[in-house]
């Protein structure tokens, strides 16, 4: 059974803080993804990675960076959090030919 875990379910940070969101998958998947979900906008892709140390920008990468030092772990970094980054953040993983499996999400509030 595929398992994707995210480091926190709820997180509250202040404007300007550096924020790390961690995602770990246990299925040896090559691909990993970070999305944010906002009402009326669906899931929007921030960044994805198709291999260790490889990353590609998604549709809304501004204000975010990522790190993938190990195959099972994909981190999303908010260098300087802003209130418009308050959102639900979802991590997913997949093999190249399979559907994506999602973690439970992190609800981030930036005050």
């Amino acid at each position, binding site marked *: 059974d595929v398992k*994707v875990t995210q480091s926190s*379910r709820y997180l509250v940070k202040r404007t300007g803080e550096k924020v790390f969101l961690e995602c770990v998958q246990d299925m040896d998947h090559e*691909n990993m*993804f970070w*999305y944010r979900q906002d009402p*009326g*906008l*669906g*899931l*929007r*892709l921030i960044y*994805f990675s*198709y291999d260790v140390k490889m990353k*590609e920008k*998604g549709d809304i990468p501004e204000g975010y960076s990522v790190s993938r030092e190990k195959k099972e772990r994909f981190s999303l970094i908010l260098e300087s959090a802003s209130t418009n980054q308050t959102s639900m953040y*979802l991590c*997913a993983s*997949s*093999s*190249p*030919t*399979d*559907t*994506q*499996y*999602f*973690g*439970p*999400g992190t*609800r981030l509030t930036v005050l």
Partner: protein
Amino acid sequence: DQQVKQNSPSLSVQEGRISILNCDYTNSMFDYFLWYKKYPAEGPTFLISISSIKDKNEDGRFTVFLNKSAKHLSLHIVPSQPGDSAVYFCAALPSNAGGTSYGKLTFGQGTILTVHP
């Protein structure tokens, strides 16, 4: 530029009746389509998919129909149950076209389905 659109933000259905969720897409390169279901405070879970070489795929109470010429797909749930109440996302995957899409999905905005007992 919303390439996958779910124009109904919400749908309310009586238990036992049919739920029909709709999705439109604009990119002709999409050739594989998926539906995900999401409960509050949980990540989306895969529900059903369809390849562009088919026009229908069925899995128990769930059936997805694809009309390529209209660039439209729909998810039918029959009979609807209160436990089906969730947000449903349509997603699309482009053909590899000589490269690899890395499984990069494009999602719609989601439709909130409420099934009343």
